[in-house]
């Protein structure tokens, strides 16, 4: 990146760059680059990354002074629900993208459990048509089974040709082991990961929160940790047997982390993610019957939160995804038992990573950034997630020191169902840049 020959070449270039980001701490986890540098962007691509001060003389139409800031690859959220088609009152691909860029994300993976679900080529095409107006890149995940019913496989080749990057029946598990086995076998032909929502529906049946002392004292039906863990164990066995790729979504329990750690040691093709709420909150948040804290998998115990942090630290957990799940106020302002599961997360994820993981010394900056960029990019075979010459200029510039108070009413998302209202966070997104264009603020 900084060989003298290349620098000379740059200095001799007569061109005026579209954008220059000067003097920031540039972190690119893939190349292990972490120092003060200038980034030059042209034609939507990163054209130069240089630690040489003199390059500041090179002209640029737009200059961002990034002194004291951190410049990272644009964040990738590999797990969000954008609700379009079907529940445009809660979120659309456009409003979801506005929320994403406000949270520093330049790519968002939208899950297929819409109404109707994204289980055929036409539906994928619809998402990509809508994605043209989005402020960030939208990548589509297709369903594993038709209608997400868990019975018949979707036309996976068709989905792949239309551009899905993974398949998942997220929101629901693929309950039949036979269907899951076939999906894993079939997807090997496309090197396509299956994102698995691990939940044994018999064990979780009727549950509304984590089964533990808090559910006992509140008299609420619990979702036990084993409802997740028995399915994680099953999927790991199926992945081992078939040689297929499984990605475990929203890992929430200590037992799941342990199972995945062991599986990785044995060489099983497994990756996994957790969410900011699962490394931040516990079931104590439900004590005030706040339906914004009702989420699936549920908020677990302190012990689970610690295990998840450990899994993030030792690399068992590859990525951090939001599981952004918008719900309308009318749907959430009801009896706890009747409220839908889910919380929005695009605009709080990064602040929670900084506040709960980086500032608490669980992860270093490059480790934390990797889990939001290159790791999801590798799992989904994306181009983004790296700061690399001639790669798309998807960049996020953050102020690591800035503190702010979460105010859901200010969210760009159409929905405001966050349990983090009033929480003080460190780390604020200053600029989000997609293909060289500043899309936020």
């Amino acid at each position, binding site marked *: 990146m900084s060989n003298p020959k290349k620098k000379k070449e740059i200095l001799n270039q007569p061109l005026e760059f579209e954008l220059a980001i000067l003097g920031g701490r540039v972190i690119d986890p893939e190349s292990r680059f972490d120092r003060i540098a200038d980034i030059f962007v042209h034609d939507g691509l990163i054209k130069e990354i240089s630690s040489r001060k003199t390059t500041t003389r090179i002209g640029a139409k737009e200059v961002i002074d990034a002194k004291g800031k951190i410049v990272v690859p644009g964040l990738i959220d590999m797990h969000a629900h954008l609700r379009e088609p079907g529940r445009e009152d809660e979120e659309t691909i456009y409003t979801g993208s506005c929320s994403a860029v406000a949270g520093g994300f330049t790519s968002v993976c939208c899950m297929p459990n819409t109404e109707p679900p994204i289980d055929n080529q036409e539906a994928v095409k619809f998402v990509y048509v809508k994605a043209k107006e989005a402020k960030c890149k939208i990548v589509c995940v297709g369903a594993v089974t038709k209608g997400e019913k868990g019975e018949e496989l979707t036309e996976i080749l068709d989905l792949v040709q239309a551009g899905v990057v993974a398949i998942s029946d997220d929101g629901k598990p693929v309950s039949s082991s036979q269907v899951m086995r076939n999906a894993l076998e079939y997807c090997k032909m496309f090197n396509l990961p299956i994102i698995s929502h691990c939940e044994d529906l018999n064990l979780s049946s009727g549950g509304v929160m984590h089964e*533990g*002392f808090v*559910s*006992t004292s509140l*008299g*609420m039906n619990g979702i036990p940790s084993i409802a997740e863990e028995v399915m994680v164990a099953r999927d790991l066995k199926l992945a081992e047997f078939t040689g297929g790729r499984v990605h475990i979504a929203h890992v929430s329990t200590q037992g799941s982390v342990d199972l995945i750690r062991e599986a990785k040691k044995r060489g099983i093709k497994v990756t996994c993610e957790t969410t900011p709420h699962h490394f931040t909150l516990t079931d104590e948040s439900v004590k005030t019957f706040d339906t914004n804290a009702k989420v699936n998998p549920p908020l677990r115990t302190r012990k689970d939160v610690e295990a998840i942090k450990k899994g993030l630290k030792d690399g068992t957990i590859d990525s951090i995804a939001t599981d952004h799940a918008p719900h309308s106020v009318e749907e959430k302002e*009801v*009896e*706890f*038992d009747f409220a839908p599961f889910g919380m929005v997360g695009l605009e709080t994820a990064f602040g929670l990573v900084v506040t709960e993981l980086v500032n608490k010394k669980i992860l270093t900056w490059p480790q934390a950034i990797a889990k939001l960029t290159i790791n999801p990019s590798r799992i989904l075979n994306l181009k983004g997630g790296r700061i690399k010459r001639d790669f798309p200029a998807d960049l996020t510039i953050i102020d690591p020191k800035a503190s702010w108070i979460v105010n859901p009413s200010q969210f760009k998302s159409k929905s405001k169902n966050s349990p983090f209202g009033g929480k003080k966070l460190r780390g604020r997104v200053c600029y989000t840049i997609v293909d060289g264009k500043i899309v936020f603020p």
Partner: protein
Amino acid sequence: MKLRSKHLLGLEGMTKEEITLILDTAEPFKEILERPIRIVPTLRGVTVVNLFYEPSTRTRISFELAEKRLSAEVISFSATTSSVKKGETLKDTVRNIEAMKIDMVVVRHQCSGVPYFLTQCLDSSIINAGDGAHEHPTQALLDLFTIREKYKKIRGLKVVIVGDIKYSRVARSDIWGFTTMGAKVAVCGPTTLLPYEIEKMGIEVHHDVDEALEGADVVNVLRIQLERQKGGFLPSLREYTNKFGINVDRLKRLNENFTIMHPGPINRGVEITPEVADGPYSVILNQVTNGVAIRMAVLYLLSGGEGKVE
């Protein structure tokens, strides 16, 4: 002395002093119930709405009587005859009712947390008449009152709650209430019907009813529902009766001067034999009588009443 909150949502977190205040306040009300004219003007001009989203006989009549004997204006509502059927949300329903100017709401609901939810939507005082498997505070208060009436104390007594602990709001309120008042509490039931980490509530946990009853003073027998068998928690009610049913034989293990309680409704021959339910040590009907006095006390104190009633 006054209660700290204008609502009664549960006994968790309530102090010994507050519980004692309610029990003490109920005493003169009980005396009023013995008079030929059983009505006082205490809550004249106060409007109380009873919102029952779940069927109830005892609790509902008990609250209505308590309200009427305090001269409150009473409106009763049940979910089967309301706009709930038309798809209106709970929040809309209660806000509409409150817009008609009311002071207190007594609520029974199948979902835990509904009384708390109402405190977020309304200005009225909220009284929990049973929410899901969470709490049933007035039931526990009347249990405490009945036990204190008989033994003149609660501290030091051993209280055993037998049955479906997992789905019982009475069990939870009793556990909080009796432990706060210094009793030693044990629960006993099939392992499938004991909720996770219940011992953390500061109680003993048993699966052997004979062991649990050893040296106990008070046995509170909970109703066992047929649904538990369907839900796969129990192989059969017959097996439940054999292992956990309270019969005369099992009473031998109890201390002298023991007491049998049941919050009702009773499944005679299932969780309790008729001889035990109707035995001289049974206070089941006293509990019902005391329920009215306790609810009068709660209504009085939450409407701003202080200390002793004249």
